[in-house]
């Protein structure tokens, strides 16, 4: 469901930012919700970045500790591809 409402959510938060910055509409609950939504999206991005980076580091670490791992083998597989 979030995929379907994702676009309106991002558009709504951007619209409120533009409205408040241009001075067209600077107060009210709608603006507060829009700005908080933008900050919430930024917070989710931080969590996603930390999660993705940690996950990739874990995978890389696991791959290196695997008994069959060797840089020469990886290079030969890449060469075959």
């Amino acid at each position, binding site marked *: 469901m979030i995929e379907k409402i994702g676009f309106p959510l991002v558009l709504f938060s951007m619209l409120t930012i533009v409205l408040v910055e241009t001075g067209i509409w600077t107060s009210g609950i709608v603006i507060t919700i829009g*700005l908080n939504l933008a900050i919430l999206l930024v917070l989710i991005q931080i969590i996603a970045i930390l999660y993705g980076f940690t996950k990739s580091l874990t995978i890389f670490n696991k791959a290196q500790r695997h008994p069959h791992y060797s840089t020469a083998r990886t290079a030969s597989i890449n060469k075959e591809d």
Partner: protein
Amino acid sequence: MYNQIERFTSNQITVHFLAAMSLMILYITGIPQLYPEHLGWIIDLIGLSKVMFIHRIAGFGLISVAVYYLIFSIISIIINGRRYYEKIIFPNSGDILDYVNDNLSILGLEQQRIDYDKYSWLEKGLIWSVILIDCIIMGITGIILFAPWTFASVLPQSTLLTIKIIHAGLAIVSLCVILPHFYLVHLSQFKFPMSNTMFTGTISEEEAQEEYPKWYREITGEKYD
């Protein structure tokens, strides 16, 4: 199972991680200072002095990453030549055509023709907006606002106020550029909940074929149909 193709180097992954983290922290600590009546709870939660301190540390982080990548790029150009940067990073006539075509297809005036190179016009636009707005303009204005009293003897007060307005205004522009990026890599129906390409550095062959056909043909040597 599709083969994976290398799209980003480990250097690019690390730079993206550090720059993105710095930028996100800058938004969270900077935007509430602009709109305390709407986002004052963040300042109340952390404390104004701490918010300002974290904002300066994150700004220093972003500038450091930018300087590092600039030095890296200069060394890379000296060693490998300018071809990579000219072909991949700088916008070219193909990007303008793609931009026009994509907009016409949104308006329903033309059929969409996806034939992107390694980076599409949107991705090039994003990286250039980060370089120009976030790193150069925000960096310079941020350094001046970091210690305005040191520049007070050189710059008149009106100029310092203008710099403050520029810094705040462009922060909003920058946020409006990052939010669609958030949509494209997290909320889009093809990527939800998140795209892992920027962390693993690889992309599946199928995805490369669909999203970056020109680049795919070039790396595989496939002929154009």
